[in-house]
């Protein structure tokens, strides 16, 4: 029941947010207002956004850590879909590979290793829910308001769907070379650090 209620809340909230965005704020125009109300591409956006946000709500509210983890998969997938919409194919693929293929699996492993899933009813307890909800509301309102209200200069401009990997590679080995090298060092350090932290102490 709780889950259903959670979904309902989220859907209502999403609708409210977009209502705010599209109706309550007058004078918002991101282009000529002719054409169909909602194209297929637009519909895909709403679908993906809903998936991401609903899954995020599940991550936030689910009582079971395992469900949370599964829901995280949905959130990450949704975000990855959004990247595709945003013509960021390489980032999307990376998201798929590293987040879903790597991080999520890692998290699942951690869940399996640390929680007795079968025994505990609430593996993902929450504290101070009320304060958290206040924070959630405040954050959502303020950030959503800021996102909608700010006079963004940018405009969606038609871009061909082109492969970005090559240009990103150029940037990595050109303009961002130092950052790239530093981050590779960081990864190495992380690798070593993670092993050192997680290994079992060898008792003499």
């Amino acid at each position, binding site marked *: 029941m709780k889950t259903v209620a959670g979904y309902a809340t989220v859907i209502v909230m999403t609708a409210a947010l977009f209502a705010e965005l599209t109706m309550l704020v007058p004078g918002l125009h991101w282009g000529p207002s002719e054409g169909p109300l909602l194209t297929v591409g637009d519909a895909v956006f709403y679908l993906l956004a809903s998936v991401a946000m609903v899954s995020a709500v599940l991550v936030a509210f689910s009582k079971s850590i395992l469900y949370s983890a599964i829901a995280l998969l949905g959130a990450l997938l949704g975000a990855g879909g959004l990247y595709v919409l945003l013509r960021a194919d390489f980032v999307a693929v990376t998201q798929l590979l590293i987040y879903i293929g790597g991080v999520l699996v890692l998290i699942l492993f951690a869940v399996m290793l640390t929680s007795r899933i079968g025994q505990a009813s609430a593996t993902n307890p929450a504290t101070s829910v009320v*304060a*958290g909800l206040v*924070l959630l509301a*405040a*954050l959502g309102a*303020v950030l959503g308001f*800021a996102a909608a*209200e700010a006079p963004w200069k940018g405009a969606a401009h038609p871009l061909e769907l082109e492969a970005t990997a090559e240009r990103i590679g150029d940037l990595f080995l050109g303009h961002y070379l130092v950052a790239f090298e530093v981050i590779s060092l960081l990864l190495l350090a992380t690798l070593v650090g993670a092993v050192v932290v997680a290994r079992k102490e060898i008792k003499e």
Partner: protein
Amino acid sequence: MDLLCHVRDFVLAAAEGAGEAAKHGEGAAREAALGVQAFKRVGYLWLIPFFPMVGAIVNAVVGARLQKRFGKSVVTNLAIGAMAAAFVTAAVAFVDLVGQPEHERLLVNHLWNMFTAGDVQANLTFALDPLSMMMVLIITFIGALIHVYSVGYMAEDPDTWRFFAYLNLFVFSMLLLVMGDNFVLMFFGWEGVGLCSYLLIGFWYKDIDKAKAAVKAFVTNRIGDFGFVLGLFLLFWALGGQWEKRSVIPPHESRWALADPAHLYEARAEAGTTYVADPTLSPQTPPATYAEVEKLATPEGWRPGASIATRDGGKVRVGPTLSFRELRDQIAVESTGVKNRLTGLTFFGMPLLALVGILLFVGATAKSAQIPLYVWLPDAMAGPTPVSALIHAATMVTAGVYMVARLNFLFALSTTAMTVIACTGAATALFAASIGFVQNDIKKVLAYSTVSQLGFMFIGVGVGAYWAGTYHLLTHAFFKACLFLGSGSVILGCHHEQDMRKMGGLKKYMPLTEKTYLYACIAISGFPLANGFFSKDEILWKAFDAGNNLADPALGKVIWLVGWVTALGTAFYMWRSYYLTFTGEYRGGHGAHESGDAHGHHGGLPHESPRSMTWVLAALAVGCFLTIFLGLWGPAGVEPVLERWLEPVLAPSHALVAARGAHEGPLAEWLLMAASVAVAFGGWAAARALYKDAKSTVPATLAAKYPRLHRWVLDKYYVDEAYRKTVLAAIWAGAKACDLFDRVVVDGAVNAAAAVGRFVCDVDGAIDKYLVDGAVNFVADGALGFGRALRRVQTGRLEHYLYAAVAGALAVVLLTFLVQ
């Protein structure tokens, strides 16, 4: 003698390489060909100093642990392996060098530019020409032998790793010194060997006297380095280098003009030190860089490893430089006009070249222990004996000689500088030899002998006989290393006894050491059975024949006489040391080893040293014999091998020196040779009569008869004391005056200020105590209370922090909107 000549011819042919013998006729043709130094680019020279460097680093960093874990042999084998690798690489380079045409024997290995500041271009470039090749072979070969010897000698010392790290570091520095293609690298090496010398003299640093000797060596060398650097600066200035560019000088690029026969340098050189670019050249001609010059010099253009053909009147970069090759080209190629300019320049009324030569030679006097800066070398015997052999006899102390020979084209231009060098050398040779007469410490005898022999070398390079001086350097490296190592063997055999009065009769106990020592004595005292005779005789002959190379034509004869007398003295004191040490009865106490500690074998009769040591001695003795053939004169008109070998290096000064010579006839040469042999026999006979088997009472009688003279010489003419009284006393007086000034004037002022300050402080203190402290305590209490209260905020709960952070961020966002 005939047989020797044949052998000599064989070696000559071997050294010249295939297809070389037919070419290069006599003098005139060779002089005319004196143009730009051609060279070959190679890529492996850096390996030669690299191996000892690696050895030094490894032994310095992990040597202690290696030694503890795996034993000493790891450490010693590492060091010896590094030396062997360096020697093998040097041998490869030698083969490569021999394969080059005679006047293109220069291998250059440019690694990278260390820094460029204005005209100063310091490159990490190694170069090997016949002269530095000879030095490198000496250093790596004798160095390797001495490493092997040290294994036995330092067997009892717990700090083996440190010793070998220092030794390898020394070899690295020394190789840097001789292989550097420019003054900067040479100076690095120059300082590096000074440092290693300091470290090794003070190797047993817990003994305060040894530490003091190390400091003395270091400080004395600093004085010389100061002169060296001054000379370098002056030379650089004379070539046109300067700090600030004056307005008349065109921009940096255009001052580098390509000088070739068509555009005389003088036409472009204005008054002072400025170089004005040829207007016909500079607008069209891009600035000359190394690469461009080389591209111009070869038909096929520059590529790494290509040998660049000499072309008469090839392009030379003119201007301030630190590179030996460029300097040589500028001076040797007449059409650049640099030679005329340098000889004409004066500095505060003094001829510049003489000043530069003398200042550089000041550096050499310290490094090579000449008057007046020789005082550190005898004290340097405090170091372990292999160190004395390697650093203070065979290699480092000859750096000054090497430097003069390397810059022969510069020194030969100034007879004043040559005179100073030759006279200093002669004076040092005689002076040090006379002290050697009466010393009782076997290492001190050898030390003064080294100083004296270095004086001989400086006579050689001073009178323009650069090859003879260098040859003596070579022979001396062998026989003096042999003598020092022999003395080390004796010292070890006699349980760390260095006093010859307590030795004697060691022939019986240490047969191999005795034989090698004997042969080295034959070499140094100038019997024509070993190498020493040939080099010393050549130096003396060249001194006699110096003529106008010195300030006064008669001076050459005087120097010859001094050298001849010194040779007599040399023979005498060396044979004295031999007879005192090896003949007669053993005078050391049985079991007289004072320390009486756990050294098991100590006490009792002397014993022969381990094989690793005696074999090294034998190898060096064989070297003493074989090196004869490098300097053996041939039939008329044929130069000795080494002279021929060094000829490309010495060519720029050759004609000049030869033209100024006195040209004495061959009869004089033979007579002088006979005289040399005579003094060798004389010295030997006298020493034999006085010291053989310790039977004669004459020495003691003489000493008793002239006690003051004996004392005077024994105490080294009180030079150290004199320095202490004069130089050091002046410094002390200066220091005392400063101290007094400090105490009376400065302290007085300070104290007065302090008194006023104290009064103010008293008043202030009262205010402070009641008013300020009250406030401060109040604030402190407040802070304490506040901190205590605030401590509760630090909950350690992540979410609390996050609440605060997000709330702050939201506030900022809202504020931004509200303000808008």
